[in-house]
């Protein structure tokens, strides 16, 4: 019934994303720049055009598109998590993927630092940054984060003894998060040289997303959107309660397994490329619910588009607010998202008070 509203909002969000990509490409660390100009100006000299091409196509465009894709993954994961746990406060990191990814990165950094020290490769540790430009370091850390995320979700599933019991799943996720967080702290305690690099990961940044990362995230996003679309009606049925969902002939085990897989894949991929970006996954579905009340199919599509727009906007803000310095985008989303949630809580309690 509300499909037309939902379509209109999806179109609006797509247009907003396009506009923000254009903005993100043309705004640099020193504000609005003429980099686009030499690109299309036939009279511009060759060197300037090459530099402009490099900045726009190799740095800004992948970063901008990457911010949208990471946000879209997180928004989709948030909608899936809230539907799966039947709880509007569920977060895509609930199953321990964030804690697992952090531990993976911490271990990789510590191992790397140690190895570098042993070889005596100059300034060990200091040379290693989470957002290092070196392809191999990037690939290694991304892989570590992803493996950590997947292993953590696996551990959560093992502790919860499958996906049949949602509450057990939730508790196992919390336990895994706390324990892996503690282990991460321990690793950092013994390898203080990786502390700074780790901090960058924990804060989250889209600064060094290259084309390879964009391609990976886009491929995973496509896969997750297809899977989520296929499971959407099952989520609708699940919202009627477990007994009713079963009475409707839904295969609950397979349904939950599929949803957990989407959740783990989407969050693991996003976290591995951009670090821990808070609140996008939590806030995006809420923003969508405030706009339109609809089925899970539309909710997931819109939450994904909303997540992309949110992270993209936050990224542009993070670059512009204290230019030429740059805020970690995770800090910005945490502050904005936290504020939004507080406002939401306040508004909701007031509405219920009136009723």
């Amino acid at each position, binding site marked *: *019934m*509300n499909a037309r509203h939902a379509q209109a909002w999806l179109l609006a969000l797509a247009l907003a994303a396009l506009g923000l990509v254009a903005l993100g490409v043309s705004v640099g660390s020193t504000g609005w720049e003429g980099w686009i100009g030499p690109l299309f100006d036939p009279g511009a000299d060759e060197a300037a055009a090459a530099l402009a091409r490099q900045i726009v196509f190799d740095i800004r465009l992948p970063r901008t598109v990457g911010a949208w894709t990471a946000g879209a993954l997180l928004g989709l994961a948030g909608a899936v998590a809230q539907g799966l746990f039947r709880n509007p406060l569920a977060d895509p990191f609930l199953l321990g993927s964030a804690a697992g990814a952090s531990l993976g990165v911490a271990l990789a950094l510590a191992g790397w630092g140690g190895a570098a020290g042993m070889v005596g490769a100059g300034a060990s540790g200091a040379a290693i940054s989470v957002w290092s430009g070196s392809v191999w370091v990037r690939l290694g850390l991304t892989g570590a984060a992803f493996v950590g995320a997947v292993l953590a979700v696996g551990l959560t599933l093992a502790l919860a003894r499958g996906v049949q019991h949602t509450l057990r799943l939730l508790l196992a996720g919390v336990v895994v998060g706390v324990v892996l967080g503690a282990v991460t702290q321990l690793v950092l305690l013994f390898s203080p040289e990786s502390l700074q690099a780790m901090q960058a990961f924990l804060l989250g940044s889209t600064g060094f997303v290259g084309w390879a990362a964009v391609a990976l995230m886009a491929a995973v996003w496509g896969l997750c959107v297809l899977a989520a679309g296929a499971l959407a009606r099952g989520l609708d049925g699940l919202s009627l309660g477990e007994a009713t969902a079963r*009475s409707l002939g839904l295969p609950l085990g397979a349904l939950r397994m599929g949803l957990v897989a989407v959740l783990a894949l989407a969050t693991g991929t996003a976290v591995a490329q951009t670090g821990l970006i808070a609140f996008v996954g939590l806030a995006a579905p809420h923003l969508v619910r405030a706009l339109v009340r609809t089925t899970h199919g539309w909710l997931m599509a819109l939450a994904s588009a909303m997540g992309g727009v949110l992270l993209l906007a936050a990224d542009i803000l993070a670059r512009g607010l204290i230019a030429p310095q740059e805020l970690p985008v995770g800090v910005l989303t945490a502050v904005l998202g936290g504020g939004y949630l507080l406002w939401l809580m306040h508004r909701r309690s007031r509405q219920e008070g009136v009723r």
Partner: protein
Amino acid sequence: MKSDAGVRADGTAALQAHDLRVCLGGRAVVQGVSLTLPRGRWTCIVGPNGAGKSTLLKAMAGLLPLDGGRVELLGRPLASWSRRERARTLAWLGQNEGGPADMTVWDVAMLGRLPHQPWLAAPSAADRAAVERALRATGAWDWRARALGELSGGERQRVLLARALAVEAPVTLMDEPLASLDPPHQADWLALVRALVRVGRTVVSVLHELPFALQADALVVLAQGRIVHHGACHDPATHRALESVFDHRLTVCAVQGQWVVLPCMTPPDEAPLPS
């Protein structure tokens, strides 16, 4: 009327339970229950709190693992039905299960058509017609575009009832369908069930509202997980069973040709003193 009335010429009833046993948390909540529910009738399960009524209903719907015994739906073991086929044949309306606050009334009722729809297929004209019939039957048609979360408890209950009706299953099981309905809508529910039974559907309901339960075709009186009595609602034996499982704190009597239940005050000299 014995419980085998209404069994078809082919000898199959709507639902049959054989020596059913269900344990919850290590405690036998339903034990040794054998029950035959005839087709095209409305049977009501009644009994005091904790008698195992909801558990029995859930077990008959195949929504709980059994610790013993078996259930047959239309003469076939429940386990031999495919998930979707069973879902098309047996509709379920649960108790206090809530619902998706953000979905519209129409979308919620459409979920009742899930067992009829091929995976990923859009709703067909038949689905839409069934949903419209169900929403009109429960008086929820006018708010079909509103979100479930904006409705009152009673209104929501009517939408969930419409969701169960939209399945258009030959057998419908309802657990406390009258909870949070106001008296006029409780009467509407009664008329609705009568209409369903008239067109040959089978309805089984757990009810706490005994005057409504006494309007059913047959009553199953349950206490401590066992069937105390199964008989027609006008049968004096049924009334006696009802009075006995409720510790004779109520009495069944006829008023204007209907059976009603009146509370029995404990005689003053026997009343426990408030301490």
